[in-house]
């Protein structure tokens, strides 16, 4: 039995059945988009699950001011060790930002996208934001520009946005009901006044929806971000998903709330809980019947640099950039070559996959589905440094990507962050507690695939019901998972219920 790779499939679950739960959700989030939109997003790491293995992005922190307060944000925050939205190390002037973008684009040729995402709201800093866009569209025309906003100042900015050839906008929409909004937004600044509570939330919601409609009417792609806040908007987000889809948003990204007391946010200090990986997945699956869902978001900093999941920002601080000699025309040629090479690789992969899917369909046509009895889905985790292959050691992984294998194929579920079990030997004294954390975040997974897995974590992994597997090093992720699933099936392990996973503290 050969499994099609659903996430990168352009035809959905080949030959598989289609129940109301999986239909649509098992497709890649980009599959049923019109061709012209797919052409726009195929190399955007934040919009295409496949692209995020190959292409890099960066944010420049030119927009410190904000026009609203969210209960998950602390405006005092600035820490180089924290990785989450709204956090930056240095605010840049537009001139510095342009310089930084050119330096990064010259040094990381995989970079395709420049976003402005804060640390405040980009559209509450229109002069700084648009000065950056204006200069970049002249000096670095091969870089895609995008912007992320809370939406309050969006309607008045749409005209200017469309001038700068920005074809991607992200709006954070956590609710479409002011009563829900009143529990998320304590105030907004509107028409020269601070407006508190429900009244402010109602204006914000109206502006967000108006902005969304104006953007899609102009053919500008809109992704909607929502923060899942258990007990506040978790039940409400399926409704949000429906509404924004009906208004033309092309992708919905439901992210888990980040709230720790030491972050100093209202939610953090209130002890507001964050959703578990399972709760998040359940909501994403529930929304996916109505909407293309994004599942690979890493909730990066407003000054992040590199592939999603990595941050090379420290290589490009302003003092380091000052000393760099940048020959942008030469860099642009190199970038074009690198991008063409990646595109070629992806095309070969796609051909390969199509061939395998066809072969499978032919086999089913020949033998009928009957001799392939339905087997249960299995969650598997992999560690990767990018490139779509299993190339990260278990002990070095800062995060694991979780996939679900089933008779319908392999689909990407999400990522789970952890502390590396072994940071190259220097901090192995912490190994035990870090391993406990990894065991906890891998809960629900039955297999973990890494480039290499050391002797020490092997037994604890097995004891936790997670089979370590180092046999697929350097292999493409989906193919390796399909192969392991097939091994499990052949060994009869999919007929039984999963091994009872022991509780991990």
């Amino acid at each position, binding site marked *: 039995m050969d499994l099609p790779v659903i996430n990168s499939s352009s035809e959905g679950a080949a030959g598989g059945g289609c129940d109301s739960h999986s239909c649509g959700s098992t497709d890649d989030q980009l599959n049923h988009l019109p061709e012209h939109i797919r052409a726009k997003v195929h190399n955007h790491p934040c919009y295409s699950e496949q692209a995020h293995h190959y292409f890099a992005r960066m944010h420049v922190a030119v927009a*410190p*001011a*904000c*026009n609203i*307060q969210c*209960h998950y944000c602390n*405006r*005092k925050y*600035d820490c180089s060790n924290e990785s989450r939205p709204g956090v930056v190390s240095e*605010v840049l002037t537009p001139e510095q930002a342009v310089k930084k973008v050119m330096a990064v684009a010259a040094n990381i040729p995989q970079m395709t996208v420049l976003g402005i995402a804060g640390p*405040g709201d980009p559209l*509450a*800093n229109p*002069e*700084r934001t648009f000065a950056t866009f204006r200069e970049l569209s002249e000096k670095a025309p091969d870089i895609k520009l995008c912007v992320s906003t809370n939406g309050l100042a969006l309607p008045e900015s749409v005209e200017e946005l469309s001038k700068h050839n920005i074809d991607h906008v992200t709006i954070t929409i956590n609710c479409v009901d002011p009563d829900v909004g009143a529990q998320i937004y*304590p*105030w907004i*600044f509107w028409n*020269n*006044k*601070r407006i508190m509570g429900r009244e402010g939330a109602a204006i914000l919601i109206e502006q967000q929806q108006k902005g969304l409609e104006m953007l899609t009417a102009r053919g500008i792609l809109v992704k909607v971000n929502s923060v899942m806040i258990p007990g506040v908007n978790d039940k409400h987000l399926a409704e949000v998903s429906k509404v924004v889809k009906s208004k033309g948003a092309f992708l919905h990204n439901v992210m888990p709330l980040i709230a*720790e*007391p*030491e972050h*100093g946010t*209202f939610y*953090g*200090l*209130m002890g507001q809980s964050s959703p578990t990986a399972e709760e998040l997945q359940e909501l994403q699956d529930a929304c996916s019947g109505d909407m293309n869902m994004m599942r690979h978001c890493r909730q990066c900093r407003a000054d992040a640099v590199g592939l999603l999941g990595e941050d090379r920002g420290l290589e490009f601080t302003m003092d380091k950039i000052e000393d760099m000699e940048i020959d942008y025309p030469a860099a642009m040629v190199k970038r074009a070559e690198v991008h063409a090479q990646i595109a070629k690789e992806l095309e070969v992969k796609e051909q390969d996959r199509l061939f395998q899917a066809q072969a499978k369909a032919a086999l089913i046509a020949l033998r009928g589905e009957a001799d392939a009895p339905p087997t249960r889905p299995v969650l598997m985790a992999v560690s990767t440094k990018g490139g779509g292959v299993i190339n990260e050691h278990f002990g070095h992984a800062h995060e694991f990507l979780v996939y679900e294998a089933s008779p319908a194929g392999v689909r990407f579920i999400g990522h789970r962050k952890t502390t590396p079990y072994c940071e190259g030997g220097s901090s192995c004294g*912490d190994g035990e507690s870090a391993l406990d954390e990894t065991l906890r975040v891998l809960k629900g997974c039955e297999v973990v695939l890494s480039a290499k897995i050391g002797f020490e974590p092997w037994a604890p992994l097995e004891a936790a019901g997670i089979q370590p597997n180092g046999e697929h090093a350097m292999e493409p992720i989906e193919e390796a998972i399909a192969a392991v699933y097939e091994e499990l099936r052949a060994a009869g392990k999919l007929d039984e219920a999963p091994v009872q996973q022991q509780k991990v503290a």
Partner: protein
Amino acid sequence: MALEIIESCVNCYACEPLCPNEAIYQASPHFLIDPDKCTECLGDYDDAQCSSICPIEGAIVDELGVALNLPGSLTGISAEMLAKYQAAVEATYQAALEAKTG
């Protein structure tokens, strides 16, 4: 009469473009208000603009040193919650310190 920005300012720039008198300017370590230019927005707006957008409670004070945004009024974070925050930050710091030395 003039308002004043004090050291809890986080340099977010939000107030600077709103001032009808261009009294606010960037300075180190934080933004400042030129007392000769500040009118507290009288005649221009119902509310002082800087303190209406400022996200930091207590960062803008009047001539008597009284905060225009009182603790808890913007974030909903009470004094008890703030104490909890300081304890959490302290604990994180201590843990990091121990991890380094231990």
